[in-house]
């Protein structure tokens, strides 16, 4: 197995008494697509800033591309592409100039960076907007430009913090497609998300993070197999009746979760469980049988939903 490009051992970040990241350990292999899944405030962004060699750890060990970020910050960062949670493009510059200026930060000669900027605009499907002001781009276009900017130094690792938060479904799919292409080209991707579908689409392997600690680790399929059932039956009886009904049907399926708006019944056969309810004379307002997702894994592990 090739040496990992990232090795975190008991990685910790404390702000005074508060541990934003509380001793997490993981490896990322070259070419792997690795995800940190967790709700807001789980410590994902803080972890990303440490991986990005910007924020200094307060405990544990961290190696990125075999180097210690405390000592080799510039060397590490020159090999990383960073897509932050909030776009920080220069809105006062034009689209192409954003790439040029950023490329220069890496010490890339002007002629090289100009050529790369044109290639990246093609890749990001923004070639026709090269001279546009950043302000005039849509949210999805800004995101794509931010990703293009992160690629200007041909990074070995691309760090993406909530890459599609706030985008409409179509823009998300375009972005996923671009990221998938990078993955195919062998770029290591590390991303945080609180969208389970995004994690399932993009990640070979992920860790579920909550309150600064790792709750579980594995591929999306493994995590679902280990921590959830094959199928989930979702039934709604109305917000005032859900809790009452849940008591009546205790014992149905492998496990039951009661959420404010619906009841989740975990089972290998959702349709059979629904038949079971109907035979008891319990007629839900709506019912849905679906495959288990990472959302269910998260609920199981933390007792909370991802998006609150």
């Amino acid at each position, binding site marked *: 197995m090739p040496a990992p490009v990232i090795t975190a051992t008991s990685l910790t970040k404390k702000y005074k008494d508060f541990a934003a990241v509380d001793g997490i350990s993981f490896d990322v292999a070259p070419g792997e697509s690795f995800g940190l899944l967790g709700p807001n405030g789980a410590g994902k962004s803080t972890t990303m800033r440490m991986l990005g060699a910007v*924020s*200094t750890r307060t405990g544990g060990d961290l190696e990125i591309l075999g180097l210690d970020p405390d000592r080799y910050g510039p060397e*590490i*960062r*020159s090999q990383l592409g960073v897509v932050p949670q909030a776009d*920080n493009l220069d809105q006062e510059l034009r689209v192409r100039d954003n790439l040029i200026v950023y490329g220069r*930060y*890496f*010490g890339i000669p002007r002629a090289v960076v100009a050529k790369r900027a044109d290639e990246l605009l093609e890749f990001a499907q923004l070639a026709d907007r090269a001279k546009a002001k950043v302000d005039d781009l849509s949210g999805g276009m800004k995101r794509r430009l931010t990703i293009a900017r992160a690629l200007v130094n041909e990074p070995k690792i691309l760090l993406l913090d909530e890459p599609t938060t706030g985008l409409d479904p179509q823009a998300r799919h375009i972005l996923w497609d671009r990221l998938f292409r990078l993955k195919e080209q062998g770029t290591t991707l590390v991303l945080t998300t609180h969208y389970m579908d995004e994690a399932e689409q993009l990640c070979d392997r992920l860790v579920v993070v909550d309150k600064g600690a790792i709750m579980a680790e594995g591929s999306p399929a493994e995590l679902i197999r280990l921590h959830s059932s094959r199928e989930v039956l979702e039934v709604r009886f109305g917000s005032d009746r859900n809790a009452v009904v849940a008591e009546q049907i205790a014992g149905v399926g492998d496990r039951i979760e009661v959420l404010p708006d619906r009841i989740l019944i975990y089972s290998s056969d959702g349709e059979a469980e629904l038949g079971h309810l109907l035979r008891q004379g319990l007629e839900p307002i709506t019912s849905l049988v679906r495959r288990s997702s990472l959302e269910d894994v998260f609920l199981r592990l933390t007792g909370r939903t991802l998006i609150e």
Partner: protein
Amino acid sequence: MSDVTETGIRPRRFGAWYVAEHRLLLMRAYGSTILATSIGNPLVYLFALGVGLASLVQAPLGDGRGGEVSYLAFVAPALLASAAVTVASEELTYPVLSAFKWNPVFVGARSSPLSSAQIADGVIIAVILRMAVTCAIYFGVMLLFGAVPSPLGALGIVTATVTGLAVGVVIMAYTSTVTEDKGQMAIIQRFIITPMFLFSGTFFPLAQLPGYLQWIGWISPLWHGTELGRVLAYGLNEPLWLSVIHVVFLLVLTVAGWRAARIIMARRLDK
């Protein structure tokens, strides 16, 4: 891992300059405005004060050696230094606040190989260049007005730029601490820059002020810069130790402010 460590060499060495390139590119967007004000300002001020107001100034202005100096020659070095201070206060208030807050390019730059100190340095370098250009143009107009008796006056471009720098780095250190805009930038302009412009021996010798107001001049970088400019432009006769104090004062302020700006920048960006 040698190929990995080599990629850090250029950013480590030239990082500040790359930031300066970025800032200069931003200035180019309003380059015509910069040029127009750089030429227009000295024309307006020198004409209004050096020609207009000068016709009312009755009291003879001594050069400290028994000779007299025209009001135009007296006021011109002060206006030159003020021009640099104006550029510094323009470039290091809102643009810096904005680069943290509304258009957070500093945060973006910090994800690249650059350090916080290099980002601070780059911003300052770009402003030094803009001040130097503005002062050079200003000086050119001063020559056209015949406001510079001594050839040494050209060095005033340097002393004026350093004066602007000394004020600018302190402003930048402060601006870098601002997280919420409650009008602090306007306060700097109204309650620091403008009074400094008025009470730094700009339009009349500091000695004309009542004793209890003269301290404003002593702590004002603009006064120190202006007096140096006068020594160079028309040979204002002041004791050598005082000229040395002017230089030391400006340099100490520059070094202290610059260091503070770097530290505050790092505190904010390295979280």
